[in-house]
């Protein structure tokens, strides 16, 4: 069994209105040194496969087809073996 940690980031070239809104919010807090805020997604899941390779393969499929939209996002993940 593996625990996967998946991060989905919006591509740098794509406008991130949520990031901009957070940046503006930080100014309301009088924190003026924040910039380049980008909002992404953080996903954790367990995957029970016979091998790490199989887990990688299934997670690639999951990210490509469902979790990320490759027109606007990139994904990465790490795997940690758990009991």
């Amino acid at each position, binding site marked *: 069994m593996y625990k996967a940690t998946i991060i989905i980031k919006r591509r740098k070239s*794509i*406008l991130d*209105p*949520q990031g*901009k*809104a957070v940046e503006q919010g930080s100014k309301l807090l009088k924190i003026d040194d924040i910039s380049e805020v980008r909002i992404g*997604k953080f996903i954790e899941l367990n995957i029970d496969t016979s091998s790490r390779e199989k887990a990688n393969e299934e997670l690639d499929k999951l990210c490509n087809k*469902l*979790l990320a*939209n490759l*027109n*606007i996002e990139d994904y990465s993940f790490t795997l940690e073996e758990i009991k």
Partner: protein
Amino acid sequence: MKPKFGVVVFPGSNCDHDAYYVTKKILDCETEFLWHKDTDLKNCDVIILPGGFSYGDYLRTGAIARFSPIMESVINFANKGGTVLGICNGFQILTEANLLPGTLIKNSSTKFICKDIFVKVANHETVLTKNVSKNILEIPIAHGDGNYFIDEKGLHSLKENNQIIFQYCSDNGEISDKYNPNGSAENIAGIMNKSGNVFGMMPHPERCSDSTLMKSDGFLLFNTLIQNIIK
């Protein structure tokens, strides 16, 4: 003979009954609701993916609806040349299903926008616009994620193949940033696929198709559709 319409119902669809009302009561066409868990398109000639918040817009708009059992049938239907119209969330689902290019992302203002806007008919040679006498239509929008994004190459291809159907504009047809409500590339409000049988649009024609509402430009689109899709 008039075409038969199918209106797909996803959990979270909220314009399904509006679409049904227009095709059944206003256009007087046979119409069926199609439940997302079913796979039978019930011999419908035109499939409408209605507006709403399918699956709560979780993950991304349209991302989960795209894997509904009914969507597999809709994708096969579209690939065989069947007519599909996605309105608002329906448009988002069609891009997630790769039946239309590009992606709808958050409005550049970050706000949900609900108001009447004007769109220019950029292509009059489609089954949805062929007999529409007006160049500028007034149709409501209601969305938080209507900002149409496509990369340079994709945009070039859309233009080259005349796939842009509607563009946000002023009441006299001026297309500029000033009249772009959500930040869409090239003010795009609606597109079609290369084959001209799959349509996606953010504005809601089904909300302005009944003359008792005083605004009925949406009717022009539905009416041309039934003239051009004959059973």
